């Protein structure tokens, strides 16, 4: 029976009833599977996020029951609210697929494509996106944008060259920490994440910028180059923590905790942020209660096991660097 307060939206022919105010993207996530547009900047728990990367563009073929006119432009599904009777095309629209291909190509023109030496490889949303929607050859034959690597405090490395300016870390820093120390400097393709100016970010929760970063621009210095993610085994674990829920994922090699992260859902989103103590200073396995292996659903690279088990030579070299 239809709930009076729910409204109906149809995405790629699949209908779902959702609460008023729900975005098209969230409605699609309630359907699940293929109809879910990729999202590189939206992050449901971060207020103000979304609308920037344009990977989630969809076509609204029917505005609503009351005003059935289609929307002339493609709209960002992450920041467009559904209307009752709305009909949306995602994968079924050639226009959407073409625009998305364009966005992916544009996101990649200045990306260093240094996946073989990037810590994020294997759990990178840009890698996934390029794999699913991209074109195999780049038409960009100019020098790519480059930035110097910067240390943000003791634990975090910023490798701005890889950044896609999704602003997630900016919202995280603004919303989880007290002082506005982290933001965007300059504009256009010269824009960069700055920490006003290279000030160390000390807040207890600042480590979460690593988890929200969809690419390898913000990485955990206590983990960098220690191992490729796909050689590590993710385990759900928790500990008693005064500052946060303590619910984390331990990335294990044998008995060694190489890295601690928060738990992400299938869309790569953290629902419970963890504190720096859990993330950076609890690498001793005896500090944790292990719950069991974590299933990683989304990331094609990890789950599909695309890589061989042999450790490539350059990884070893980098360990020394």
């Amino acid at each position, binding site marked *: 029976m239809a709930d009076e307060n729910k409204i109906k939206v149809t995405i790629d022919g699949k209908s779902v009833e959702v609460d008023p105010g729900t975005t098209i993207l969230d409605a699609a996530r309630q359907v699940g599977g293929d109809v879910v547009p990729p999202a590189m900047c939206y992050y449901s728990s971060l207020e103000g996020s*979304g*609308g*920037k*990367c*344009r*990977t989630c*563009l969809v076509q609204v073929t029917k505005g609503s029951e009351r005003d059935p006119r289609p929307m002339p*432009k*493609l709209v*960002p599904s992450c*920041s467009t609210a559904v209307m009752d009777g709305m009909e949306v095309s995602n994968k079924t629209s050639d226009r959407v697929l073409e*625009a998305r291909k*364009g*966005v992916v*190509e*544009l*996101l990649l*023109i*200045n990306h260093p494509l240094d996946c073989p030496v990037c810590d994020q490889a294997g759990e990178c949303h840009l890698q996934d996106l390029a794999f699913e929607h991209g074109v195999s050859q780049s*038409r*960009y034959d*100019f020098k790519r944008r480059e930035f110097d690597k910067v240390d943000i405090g003791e634990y975090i490395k910023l490798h701005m060259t890889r950044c*896609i*300016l999704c*602003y997630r870390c900016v919202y995280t820093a603004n919303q989880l920490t007290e002082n506005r120390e982290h*933001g*965007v400097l*300059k*504009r*256009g*393709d*010269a*824009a960069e994440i700055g920490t006003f100016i290279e000030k160390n970010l000390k807040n207890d929760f600042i480590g979460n910028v690593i988890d929200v970063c969809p690419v390898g621009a913000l990485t955990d210095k206590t983990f960098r180059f220690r191992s490729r993610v796909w050689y590590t085994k993710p385990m759900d674990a928790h500990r008693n923590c005064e500052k946060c829920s303590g619910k984390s994922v331990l990335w294990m090699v044998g008995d060694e905790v190489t890295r601690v992260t928060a738990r992400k859902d299938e869309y790569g989103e953290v629902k419970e942020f963890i504190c720096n103590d859990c993330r950076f200073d609890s690498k001793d396995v005896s500090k944790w209660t292990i719950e069991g292996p974590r299933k990683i659903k989304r990331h094609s690279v990890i789950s599909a096991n695309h890589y061989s088990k042999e450790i490539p030579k350059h990884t070893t070299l980098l360990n020394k660097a």
Partner: protein
Amino acid sequence: MSRKLLLENAHIEGINTYDVYRKNGGYRSVEKALKSMSPDDILEEVKKSGLRGRGGAGFPTGMKWSFLAKPDGVPRHLVCNADESEPGTFKDRYLMEKIPHLLIEGMIVSSFALGANQSYIYIRGEYMYVLQILEKAIKEAYDNGWLGKNIQGSGFDFDLAVTPGAGAYICGEETALIESLEGNRGNPRMKPPFPAVKGLWQRPTVVNNVETIAAVVPIVNDGGDEYAKIGIGRSTGTKLISASGNINKPGVYEIDLGLSVEEFIYGDDYCGGIKNGKKLKACVPGGSSVPILPHYLVCKTAEGNDRLMTYESLSEGGFETGSMLGSGGFIVYDEDQCIVRNTWNFARFYHHESCGQCSPCREGTGWMKKVLHNLEHGKGKQEDIDLLWDIQSKIEGNTICPLGDAAAWPVAAAIRHFREEFEWHVKEPSLSQEKNYGLVTEKQFETETA
């Protein structure tokens, strides 16, 4: 010769001072409005006038004002957009420099109509000397009781402040402007919510161009019907045009909407024809963002109608064969000008001015600039032309704010109408470098109408 509603007194000695401005009928509209009109009366006159926004988009001002939300107990604001940074556009500067009190007068009546007690003028940072002129004029207005508490004994309190930007074109986009005014980075906001509902400090806000606000003064003085008598159809009143390029008399002109483009370019009262007896090659009629027109589509439309200086006529034929009135930045190119170079120059601007928030504009503008640089410098390939077309098509319509479109349209129009010239740069790389200008063929001028 067109009527002058805004610039009529601009040439009077000392008109930038309060005393001279007042002696010449200044602040009459405020007296009239505060004494004998309600805010709704003013709104009614503005609606009747048919006035459309002079900042570029041409949105009907009366309609914009009527969308302003009016929740109880929440202050509302009028923000004047004086960021004027579109290449080719310099009309607002002229108005503010010559007759600053006209803008202040317009701000008072418009704010009264909107129920705003505190309004702002956001001026581009490069106009520092104009800021000083405005500040001086605002002080005079305070000293003479036109600003502040209980204006002219009417009970209406109104404060006005002017704030400079820091040199960003994007801060002319209304939501970026609001962010900047709040002291934040000037990134455009996503719409909805629109400023009319949640603008400055999340309060209902109207953002209007300098010229739009100034035009409210004659509308209140003489009535909306009187204003609407000027012009044709939905293009009413007068319009300031900044004319530049290869013409005999560049400058700011106040024209009656409906004037023919031919008369504007060749008439002695206006641009006075192409400089040095050269031929017209192309025209960008509304600022760098609007499509460029080849000479055969400047004075006549594709249908063979006379092209007029109106919103409708300039856009006749859509983007295939038309353009837009835009902000009134009218740029004229003679036969010696290179379209590829011009397109590259515009592309440099948009690349430099993109805020970088959304990926198609951030990355696409830089890519187009680089490809155009190669083409202009004799290093282009044939495929580059199609590549450019493809990049602009991936930006257009897919961004947060219209800067993405503004970057894409000039590239698209240049390729659409001047493809041959792009190809010539590829085929004759050394020749194209030798000659500082682009392709001139007889064929190009065969259809010359002017």
